[in-house]
C-alpha cells in the first residue's frame, strides 16, 4: 500500500505545474495534444469516407460540408495537427536514435518544429479561406 500516497499526489506529465515552460516541454505537450486531435478526427474521416464512397448525392453532400465553415476549420485543424505530429515525431525518432540529444539541440529542434508548423498553419489558412 506504499504506492497509494504516490498515486494521489502524482504531478501532471510533462510537469506543467512544477517546471518552467521551455521549448522542448511545449513540443512534448503539443505532441500529445495534436495526437489527440488526430485520433478525434478518425470518426469524422470515416463518416466522410462513408459519404464519399456512397451515392453521387452523398458525395455532393460531403464536398458541400467540406466547403462549409466548420468543414474548412476541421481541414485546417487536422492539417496543422498532422504537420506538427509528423515533424515532431521525426524529431523524437532522431532523438531516440541519439541524434540531437544535447540540451541545445533539443531546444533548437523544438523551435524549428514549432516554426515550421506555424508557417504551415498560416499557409493552410490562406489556402482554405
Amino acid at each position, binding site marked *: 500500500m*506504499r504506492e497509494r*500516497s*504516490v*498515486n*494521489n*499526489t*502524482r*504531478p*501532471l*506529465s510533462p510537469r506543467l505545474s*512544477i517546471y518552467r515552460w521551455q521549448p522542448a516541454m511545449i513540443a512534448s505537450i503539443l505532441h*500529445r495534444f495534436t*495526437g*489527440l486531435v488526430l*485520433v478525434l478526427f*478518425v*470518426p469524422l*474521416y*470515416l463518416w*466522410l*469516407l*462513408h459519404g*464519399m*464512397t456512397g451515392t*453521387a448525392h452523398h*458525395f455532393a453532400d*460531403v*464536398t458541400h460540408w*467540406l*466547403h462549409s465553415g466548420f*468543414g474548412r476549420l476541421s*481541414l485546417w485543424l*487536422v*492539417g496543422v495537427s*498532422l504537420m506538427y505530429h*509528423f515533424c515532431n*515525431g*521525426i524529431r*523524437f*525518432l532522431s532523438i*531516440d536514435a541519439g541524434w540531437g540529444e544535447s540540451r541545445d539541440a533539443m531546444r533548437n529542434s523544438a523551435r524549428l518544429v514549432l516554426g515550421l508548423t506555424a508557417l504551415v498553419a498560416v499557409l493552410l489558412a490562406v489556402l482554405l479561406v
Partner: protein
Amino acid sequence: MNEKTTLPVKLPIKEPGAAHSGLSDWYWQRLSAVVLAVLLPLPFFLLVSVYGGSVDQQGLLDLLDHFISRLLHTLLIAALMIHVYMGLKVIIEDYVHVAGLRVCLTGAMLVVMTGFGIWWLAIIWAWGG
C-alpha cells in the same frame, strides 16, 4: 518543489512494472510511427484533393478500389491502431490517477478503437460499410 515529503524513501525504479519489460511497447510505438509517417499524410491529401475538386467521385473510387491502395490502407489501419492504443494509454496513465477508472477507460478505448477499425476496413474492402 517540496515534492520529497510525499514520495517514499526508496522508489522501486529497478522493477520494469507488471509487464516485466518496457522494450516491446517502446519498439512497437516507433515501428508504427515510421509506417504512419509514410502512410498517414495520404488520406489527408486525398481529402484535400476532393475539397479542391481535383478528384471527382469516380477518380476517388478508382483510387480506393485499387488493390495496392487497399493493402496500404489496411497497413495504415493496423499501424494507426497500435500507435493510438499506446499513445492514448500513456496519456490515460499520466492523467487518470484512480486505478479502476484507468482500467475502464483503457478498456473502453480498446473496444471503441476496434469498432472504428472494423468500420474502416469494411469501407475500404467494400463489405458494405
